[in-house]
């Protein structure tokens, strides 16, 4: 399923400003790996011009509308309205035609079986963790630490619970779960458990804090990054991030779309990662 025209099966608001879109996608279940993303073409006309990148939340089959026909294979994205493109997406309806490029990029690798797994999600950053959780729960104890500014930012938690994931929630305003930062919860859990693989996705300041904590506890960390993207396939070199060992003299850039969006923490240069450098919503 490299680049295909397809149809929307459903598009609903699941929390204020957060939407879930289900898209018909033959081959998705076999093709999409946890942590991969797609490039969504908002309109067939050229406004907005560029496609928008979104993590793949999950894939599956739903019964066909038409009796006797086989089930319909789908993928789902969860998106937050932040600008023109996502606002236009929220106005699309079931049956509308859309164009998808994907699955793209390198996803998560599962890590050693048996070790505890801690997933850390910040707001919409939860998206790429769901398929990962699906894979991990088969052989591991999996916890999801979910953070957001307010209760509205905590989405899809029950779906993780249904998988058998233990969930912990922290909101900055205390409107759901513990009051505070999800990274405090992470620190507490690592202290408690000792050893664990950590997988994180969310705003850059959260990822930076997660990285520091994991380094301290020597917990292997994989992060999923966001970056401004034009092509999604490694051709434009617009989406790069500074790799370990980067300096003005020996610059080392990694492509978020092709070498990522999931990186092992050691691949990246955390000192040089500028929380405000990217204009991504997630990184503000």
């Amino acid at each position, binding site marked *: 399923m*490299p*680049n295909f025209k397809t149809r929307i099966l459903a598009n609903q608001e699941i929390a204020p400003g957060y939407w879930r879109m289900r898209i018909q996608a033959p081959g998705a279940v076999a093709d999409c790996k946890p942590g991969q993303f797609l490039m969504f*073409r908002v309109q067939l006309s*050229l*406004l*907005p*011009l*560029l*496609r928008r990148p979104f993590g793949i939340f999950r894939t599956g089959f739903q019964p066909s509308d038409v009796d006797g026909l086989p089930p319909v294979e789908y993928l789902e994205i969860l998106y937050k309205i932040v600008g023109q493109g996502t606002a236009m997406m929220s106005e699309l309806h079931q049956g509308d035609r859309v*164009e998808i*490029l994907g699955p793209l990029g390198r996803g998560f690798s599962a890590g050693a079986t048996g070790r505890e797994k801690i997933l850390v999600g910040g707001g919409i950053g939860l998206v790429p963790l769901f398929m990962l959780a699906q894979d991990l729960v088969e052989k591991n104890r999996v916890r999801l630490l979910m953070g957001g500014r307010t209760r509205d930012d905590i989405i899809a938690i029950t779906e993780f619970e249904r998988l058998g994931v233990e969930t912990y929630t922290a909101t900055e305003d205390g409107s759901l779960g513990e009051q505070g930062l999800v990274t405090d919860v992470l620190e507490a859990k690592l202290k408690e458990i000792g050893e664990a693989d950590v997988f994180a996705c969310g705003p850059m300041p959260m990822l930076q804090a997660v990285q520091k904590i994991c380094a301290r506890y020597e917990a292997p960390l994989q992060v999923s990054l966001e*970056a*401004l*993207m*034009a*092509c*999604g*396939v*490694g*051709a*434009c*070199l*617009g*989406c*790069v*991030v*500074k790799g370990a060992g980067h300096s003005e003299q020996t*610059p*080392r*850039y990694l492509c978020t779309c*092709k070498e990522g969006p999931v990186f092992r923490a050691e691949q990246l240069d955390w000192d040089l990662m500028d929380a*405000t*450098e*990217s*204009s991504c919503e997630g990184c503000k």
Partner: protein
Amino acid sequence: MNSTGSKNGISLAVEVAGIRMKNPIMPASGTFGYGEEYAPYIDLDNLGAIVTKGLSLAPKAGNPTPRITETVSGMLNAIGLQNVGVDAFIEHKMPFLRELNTPVIANFFGNTLEEYGEVASRLDAIPELAGVELNISCPNVKKGGIVFGTDPKAAFEAVSTVRKRLSKPLIVKLTPNVTDITDIARAAEDAGADALSCINTITGMAIDVRRRRPRIANLTGGLSGPAIRPVAVRMVYQVVNAVSIPVIGVGGISTAEDALEFLIAGASAVQVGTANFVDPDAMQKVIDGLERFCLEEGVDDIRSLIGSLEVA
């Protein structure tokens, strides 16, 4: 589409600077990687040619991020010409390109005359390269940063230097950021260019008004995409009428109709850039659309459309 570019009795084949192409459609440098990035999405053998990302003598890391931003019907980029360098290109990228049934054109640049010359001679040694495209939109570090491509004398020098080290077809790519593009075009022709391509991106800027910061780290970037097409068509028309070597049209092409504007204005072939990002299949659609157009209009050889503009 078979390899001769002829289907339904329509010939889309063109020849530019001695390079024979199945059709006049090729990617614009820097928007198609080294070809392999798009291999899953489009049949590279169907293209008129492939133009690589711009190459320099040493590998180049490019600019800090953010490097790109969307604008109305366009985008700004300041990639900073990140590339693997000419030697890594030969070692790692040519093996893939060499197997294609499509002419490959290497785009390259330098920051000094010596660099230009050196890259040219290394590229000239690659037998499977059909030609090179010289990007003169770079600052000449030895001359205080004046851009080679904005001064006719500097352009002449750069092109001459390259010409001396090169036996392959030489395409020179012009920048639109000039008062009179025909001055530069003539200088390039006089210095031995076999063809010209225009235009490169138009320098632009965008600001994040809430954060009072430039949207790309480099402050300014190059504007590309549908927004710039009228400027590109105008410049191609001017250049076609100023020189006697062929011209390749670039700038804002995403459909067959867009490509036809350039061909009718006099371009012998065209390059598709930003549109590849929007639709990895864009060039195939342009090729198919050209054929449909010829069929509908009773044109049996696309070359008869080149320069067919009727001016009162």
